[in-house]
C-alpha cells in the first residue's frame, strides 16, 4: 500500500518541498530510503523504527521503501523524521491517509516518540504557506517562529501520538507560554548600548553618525583603549529599525543558520566575528544551515575588529558580498545564494605596537609599518568610505563628555535617510552609499569652490577616481544630516578630512 506526506528540507537558503512517499509490500523485512538522502536522513530508519514501536504502534514487518521526491537535489537533516513515520503508519493502514494530504510535517523524532523542533522552522513555515498547504504540525519549542507567518494554521504536537491525533482531526497539544520558552533557552532581548556612554572622541562619533545615515563603510584606527570597539558596538543603537518585511527576511536567515528566533526583532543585526574566522565562515557554505557571518549581518552591521589580524584570503572573500550585496556559492552538488547587504565597520591599531602617533611611543620599524599598511590596503581599504583616527585624549579633552545620545543621533540619521529615500527613489536605491555615477552626477552638484577643491585633491594625488566618488557620496550624506539640498564646500572639506589617506611617511618612501 502507498502513502504520501509533505515535508521540507533546507538547501542553503532555499526551502524545498519534499514529497515523502512510502510503499509497504510483502517481502523480506527491509527499510530503504531513496532520493538523495544524506546520512542524517538515512539514520532516521532507526529512530522511526523505535519511535513507532514505543508509541504503541506496529512497525510493519515487511518490505518498506521510502522515496523522497523530487530526486534531483540532496535532502539533509533530521527534520523529515515526522513525515516519514506518519507515512509509514498510513501505508501500513494504521492511520487514515486523508489527513496527510494538506498538512506539512516538520520535526525530528526521539526513540520514545517525542518530537523535537528542528532548525529552520521559520523558513519551513514560510514555505508551507507558499506551497498552499493548510496546516503545519511541529514541536512546541519553536511554534512561535512559525506563528510569525501570517495566515498559516500551526498545530503543536509534542509526540508522534499527538501528531496522529491532530492528523485525524483531534485537538493539538497546548502552545507553551512565552515565559516558559524563554526560561527553557535562557534567552533575553539585548538592551542596546548607548552613545552617551562615550566620552570625548567627538570626531569619531560624528563619523559614526555619518556612516549610519548614509550607509557608508567606516574604519576606526587608533591606539588600544581609545574606544574603537566601544563605538562600533553602539552602531545598532543609531540605525533606523528594520521594517516588518526586512525583519522577516533577517529572521529567516538566522533561522536557517539554526539560531532560535524569539520574535521578530526590529534591531538591526550586529555581527562581530573573531579575526581567526575563515573565508568560508565569513561568506558561508553551499550546504544546509551553513550561513556565513556576512549573510547574518544582512541589513545590519558587520564589524571586523582588529582588521589587520584577519587573514588576507578572508578579506578578499568579502569583495563580492560588498560589491553585489549578495554572495553565490557553487560547490559540486550544492549551490546557494545569500543576501549580504550589510554595512562594514572595522577597527585597527595604527601600527603593530599600537602606538603610532602617540608621542614617540611607537617602536615599530619602517618595515613593520609597511607590512601593517600592506595588510590593510588593497581590496578592502579600497571599499571603505570613511577613515577615522582616534587618539588618546589628554585630560582637558577627556572632560569633554559625550557628544549626543543614541536617541538624538538616531533621529538625525533617520531624517537624513528619509531625505535620501525620497531623492533616490527614482534610481531604485535608498542610501547615498549606493549611488552610482549617474546618481552622483544628478544629485551632487558642486559649486565652483567645491569643484576646485576636488580637482586640487585629485591633482595632488590625494584622491583616486574611486576615492572621488566615495568622497562625493560622503559629502552628500553630511549635507543630508544638516538638512541641506545642495552639497556645500564645507561638506566637501569635512568629507576630505575623513577620507582614507596615505601618511607622509608612506608617500615619501614610496
Amino acid at each position: 500500500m502507498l502513502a504520501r506526506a509533505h515535508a521540507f528540507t533546507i538547501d542553503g537558503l532555499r526551502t524545498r518541498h519534499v514529497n515523502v512517499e512510502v510503499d509497504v509490500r510483502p517481502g523480506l523485512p527491509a527499510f530503504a530510503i531513496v532520493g538523495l538522502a544524506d546520512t542524517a536522513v538515512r539514520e532516521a530508519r532507526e529512530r522511526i523504527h523505535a519511535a513507532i514501536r514505543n508509541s504503541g504502534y506496529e512497525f510493519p514487518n515487511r518490505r518498506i521503501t521510502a522515496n523522497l521526491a523530487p530526486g534531483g537535489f540532496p535532502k539533509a537533516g533530521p527534520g523529515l523524521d515526522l513525515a516519514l513515520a506518519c507515512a509509514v503508519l498510513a501505508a501500513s493502514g494504521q492511520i487514515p491517509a486523508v489527513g496527510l494530504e494538506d498538512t506539512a510535517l516538520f520535526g525530528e523524532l526521539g526513540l520514545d516518540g517525542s518530537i523535537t523542533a528542528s532548525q529552520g522552522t521559520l523558513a519551513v513555515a514560510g514555505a508551507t504557506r507558499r506551497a498552499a498547504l493548510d496546516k503545519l504540525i511541529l514541536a512546541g519549542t519553536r511554534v512561535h517562529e512559525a506563528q510569525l507567518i501570517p495566515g498559516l494554521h500551526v498545530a503543536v504536537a509534542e509526540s508522534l501520538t499527538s501528531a496522529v491525533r491532530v492528523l485525524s482531526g483531534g485537538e493539538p497539544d497546548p502552545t507553551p507560554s512565552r515565559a516558559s520558552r524563554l526560561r527553557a533557552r535562557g534567552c533575553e532581548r539585548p538592551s542596546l548600548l548607548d552613545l552617551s556612554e562615550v566620552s570625548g572622541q567627538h570626531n569619531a562619533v560624528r563619523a559614526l553618525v555619518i556612516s549610519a545615515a548614509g550607509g557608508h563603510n567606516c574604519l576606526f584606527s587608533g591606539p588600544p583603549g581609545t574606544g574603537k570597539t566601544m563605538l562600533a558596538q553602539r552602531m545598532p543603537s543609531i540605525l533606523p529599525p528594520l521594517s516588518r518585511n526586512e525583519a522577516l527576511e533577517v529572521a529567516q536567515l538566522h533561522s536557517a543558520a539554526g539560531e532560535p528566533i524569539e520574535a521578530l526583532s526590529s534591531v538591526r543585526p550586529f555581527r562581530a566575528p573573531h579575526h581567526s574566522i575563515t573565508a568560508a565562515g565569513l561568506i558561508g557554505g553551499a550546504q544546509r544551515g551553513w550561513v556565513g557571518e556576512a549573510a547574518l549581518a544582512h541589513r545590519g552591521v558587520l564589524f571586523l575588529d582588529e582588521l589587520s589580524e584577519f587573514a588576507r584570503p578572508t578579506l578578499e572573500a568579502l569583495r563580492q558580498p560588498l560589491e553585489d550585496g549578495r554572495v553565490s556559492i557553487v560547490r559540486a552538488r550544492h549551490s546557494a545564494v545569500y543576501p549580504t547587504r550589510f554595512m562594514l565597520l572595522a577597527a585597527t591599531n595604527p601600527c603593530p605596537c599600537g602606538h603610532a602617533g602617540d608621542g614617540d611611543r611607537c617602536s615599530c620599524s619602517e618595515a613593520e609599518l609597511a607590512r601593517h599598511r600592506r595588510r590593510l590596503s588593497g581590496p578592502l581599504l579600497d571599499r571603505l568610505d570613511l577613515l577615522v583616527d582616534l587618539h588618546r585624549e589628554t585630560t582637558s579633552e577627556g572632560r569633554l563628555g559625550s557628544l549626543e545620545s543614541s536617541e538624538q543621533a538616531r533621529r538625525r540619521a533617520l531624517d537624513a535617510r528619509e531625505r535620501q529615500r525620497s531623492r533616490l527613489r527614482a534610481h531604485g536605491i535608498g542610501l547615498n552609499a549606493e549611488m552610482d555615477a549617474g546618481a552622483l552626477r544628478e544629485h551632487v552638484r558642486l559649486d565652483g569652490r567645491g569643484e576646485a577643491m576636488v580637482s586640487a585633491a585629485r591633482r595632488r594625488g590625494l584622491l583616486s577616481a574611486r576615492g572621488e566618488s566615495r568622497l562625493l557620496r560622503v559629502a552628500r550624506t553630511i549635507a543630508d544630516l544638516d538638512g541641506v539640498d545642495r552639497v556645500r564646500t564645507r561638506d566637501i572639506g569635512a568629507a576630505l578630512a575623513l577620507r582614507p589617506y596615505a601618511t607622509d611617511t608612506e608617500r615619501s618612501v614610496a
Partner: protein
Amino acid sequence: MSSSGTVHEALGACAGCRRRSWLLSALSVLLDFRAQDRARLDELLSLDDRDLLRSLGGRRQSELSARYEALSTEQIAEAPGVEAVCRHHSLYPRALRDDPASPWMLHVAGGRRRLALLAGAPVVAITGSRRASDYGVEMAHTLARGLAASGVTVICELADGIASAALAGALEAGGPALALPGNGLGVRWPTTKRPLYASLLRSGCALSELPHDCRGRRWGAVAGERIVARLAGLVVVVEAEEKPEEMALARAAGARGKTVAAMPGRLTSPLSSGTHALLVDGARLVRGAQDVLDLLYPLAPARRSSRGAVAEPGIPGLEPMLARILALVGTGRDTPDRLIEPGEDPAKALLALSELELMGLLGRGAGGRYVPRHPAWALEGAAGTHAAPDTLTAATQGI
C-alpha cells in the same frame, strides 16, 4: 698596490683592484664578525690583499690563498648597468683618492662619469635614525630637497628612516644624489625601496664597495659609512638617538675634521637625544637648507644674521582662518578633536584642515595627526607640478 698598474679606461678598473673586490666577497662572512668593532674593520679594510688574507683567513687561509692566486680576472664581471671605477682611474672621486683606507674600487650604478661630476660638487651627507618620527622624516625630506635644488650633492646610506626620506627629498628636486646601500648592487631590493632606487638611477648614482651579488649583512653598512664620511664635506644629523650605531657616521666625519651639523628636536623626545648630544659637543645647529648653505659658503656675519632658514611664522596672503588653524596645528593641536572647541561648528575647522592639506601646508603623519609641511616645498609643489595657484586661492577664499 696593483701589480699591473695600468688601468684600462673603458674597463674602469685594473686587474689588481678587481681581484681585491673578489677577495672582499670571498671574505664577506668573516668580515661580518668584525663589524661590531668599527675601528678594527677600518683597519682591516686598509690592509693589502695578502695581509687581509692572513688576518682573516684562519683555517681557510690556504684554500682562499690558492683560489686567490689562481683567479683570472675574466671571471670577475660587472652586472648589467653597473660600472667599475678603481683608484687608478681618472674618474675615481678625488676625495677618496689619497687615503689608504678608501675602497680600492667602487661599483657604480648610474655611470662613473656622473659619479665624478656629482662628487666634484659640494657634497653634504644627511644621516640619522632608521626609526624616525614624522618630524624627522619631514625635516630630512625638506632639507635634502632644498640642498639638491641649490646644486649640492646629497649623499646618504640607502637605509630606512632619515636616509630614505632625505634621498626621496633630493630626488624630488630632480637632484644630484649619491646613495650607499649596504649590499652589492645586484642584490634584490626590498619591494618598498625599489621605486626609490629606480628614481635614484635617473639623476644620481648608487655606489658600493661590494661586488654585485655580495650581501653585506652588517659590515656592508659600516663600510658604506666610511665612504660617506670621506666623500661628504659636511654631515648633517637630522634625528638620531644617542646610540653608537646612529652616531657613528657623525663621529667618523668629525674625527676626519669634517663639519658636523645637527638639527634640534624636542628635548622630551628620545629620538633626538643623539642630535642634542652632538649640539652640546659643539656641532653646528642648522634649521634647514639655508643654514647648511651658509656653512658651505660662509657669508659676512651681518648678512647671515638677517637670513632665517625657517620661514617666518605665517604665510603671506593666507586667509586668517587658515592661518589660525595652521598656527594651532604647529603648537600641537594636531587632531580635529583638539582643534574644535565644544559647541563650535565642526565643519569650519575640518574645512580649514582640508584646504591646508590641499595647499600642501599640512600633511598626515603617524596616527593620522596633521603635520605642518615646509611652506617652500608646499607652494613650489602647488605652483609647479600640481595645481595652478589661482584655482587654489579660489578654493580657499571666503570660508
